[in-house]
């Protein structure tokens, strides 16, 4: 399958996770990775399955590298109804009620643009003991299988 990994990051963890995911997933798929900062909603190749990896910053806000993308998406009302995607969120349970809210903000904007989310949002807690990739890889493989089933 053709996959696009897109990350929104503040401290670099989402970028690291995408690099790791790409390394694993490209054994069986065609994978490209980009920072949301370098992408506009109009750039998205709608025939590819998109996996967004997005952290949370400040008080449940988007990380800096995702802000312009979401602002543009809302302002230009890009039609993403042909886009199928999944979201993996990075957060920290220390921040309680805003835990992993950045990925919710991104998801809400994508859904409002008509994009179709597949499966559950993946979640990683920086205060937990799990390595991000250990959670994200099986999660991504399950989402890719779902996307594949839709195509068949």
């Amino acid at each position, binding site marked *: 399958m053709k996959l696009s990994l897109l990350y929104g990051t503040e401290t670099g963890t989402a970028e*690291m996770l995408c690099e790791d995911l790409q390394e694993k997933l490209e054994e069986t798929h065609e994978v490209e990775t980009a920072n949301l900062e370098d992408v506009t909603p109009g750039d998205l190749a709608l025939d590819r399955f998109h996996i967004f990896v997005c952290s949370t910053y400040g008080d449940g806000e988007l990380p800096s590298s995702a802000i312009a993308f979401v602002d543009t998406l809302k302002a230009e009302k890009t039609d993403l109804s042909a886009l199928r995607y999944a979201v993996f969120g990075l957060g920290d349970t220390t921040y309680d009620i805003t835990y992993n809210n950045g990925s919710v903000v991104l998801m809400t904007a994508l859904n409002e643009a008509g994009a179709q989310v597949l499966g559950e949002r993946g979640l990683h807690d920086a205060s937990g003991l799990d390595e991000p990739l250990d959670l994200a890889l099986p999660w991504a493989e399950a989402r890719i299988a779902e996307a594949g089933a839709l195509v068949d």
Partner: protein
Amino acid sequence: MSATVAIVGSGPSGCYLAQALRKLLPEAELTVIDRLPVPYGLVRYGVAPDHQGTKAVTRQFARLFERDGVEFIGNVHVGSDVSLAELEEMFDAVVLATGLSADRPLAAFEGVGGVYGSGDVTRAWNGHPDDAKAGFAFGEAVVVVGNGNVAMDVVRLLAKDAGEFEGSDITGDMLGGTVRQIHLLGRSGAEAAKFDATMVRELGKIEGLAIDMAQPLPEGEAKVLADLHALNGKAGDGKRLTFHFNTAPVGPVMKDGRLAGVTCRRDGDEVTLACDSVVTAIGFDARDVAWRDALLARAIDVGQGRLTERLYATGWFRRGPTGTIADNRGDAKLVAAAIAGHLQPGGRPGRLALQQKIGHQTTSYRDWQRIDEWERNSAPPNRVRAKMTSKAEMLALCAEGLSE
């Protein structure tokens, strides 16, 4: 021959710089030097021990040493073990990433017993070899001066009971066990407080802590105000925290040669708060690196972090003591681009020459892994880690590893 770069300091600014530089220069020999035997600087010793999620940024830094061919050399003090000039002879480029760790003092309180800097206190709670053994006597009443996130860290760690550090790596018995009353002083009004709303809400989760305000809180748009209003009047059967806004400390009140209180000015009135100790959390400065000013004044381009032809600076050392850990990532990209643009391999020998020059035991990343493993395995119940708090102990453990 590939270029050689030394990065002085293995905290967030040094590690982010190594990360950014590695992306631009896959072949360069990159060496991160630290005066301590262990890496990660502020992340290990400055981030509050109950904020393990923030400390988890070391997951990124670890791969520099585990996968990306960046070398760590610890227990090397640039200045006394090797001079900066010598380092510049050994490496094609040298980057200063040592941060700014000295507490900015509160003038009228300098040298008064019972007055502590937030940096020293935080380092002690984090088991820093220089501060872990420092005795802090907080007594029953503590005045914390400052309205930023560091002040809030200090307040939270003092306010928690011993049972509320689950999952942290706080060191030893220096918790605020004796503390009954905490006063938090801020010069500005509540609406202008610099701490984050998330930090305010975290205080609300401390079970026994009662919270009140010395004056009525203003109404307003500021996000932090809503959270302060929500906290105000919180009941608790343990310690009490009182917020004092628009309140500036004037001087210490002494009784029988000991600190007994703080005189403050609030809306033109003088107020005295009784206390046994004061923690100042009013920022950091460069008082312990006086030579930094001259270096920056003569710099080719401070904006790019370029001090001289082959000497660079990044992070707080470059831009001063403001901004978060993540801000150093942007700094690193900027400075790494400047280095990559000017770097010329000059046949300078790099880390081999440094290792030959240092006559005493240094540490490698492998040594850190050994210490890390020991610390995790030695964690007391409900803690993720027990910090090894003496350099001698660290070096002894590493020497043991060498003879295996």
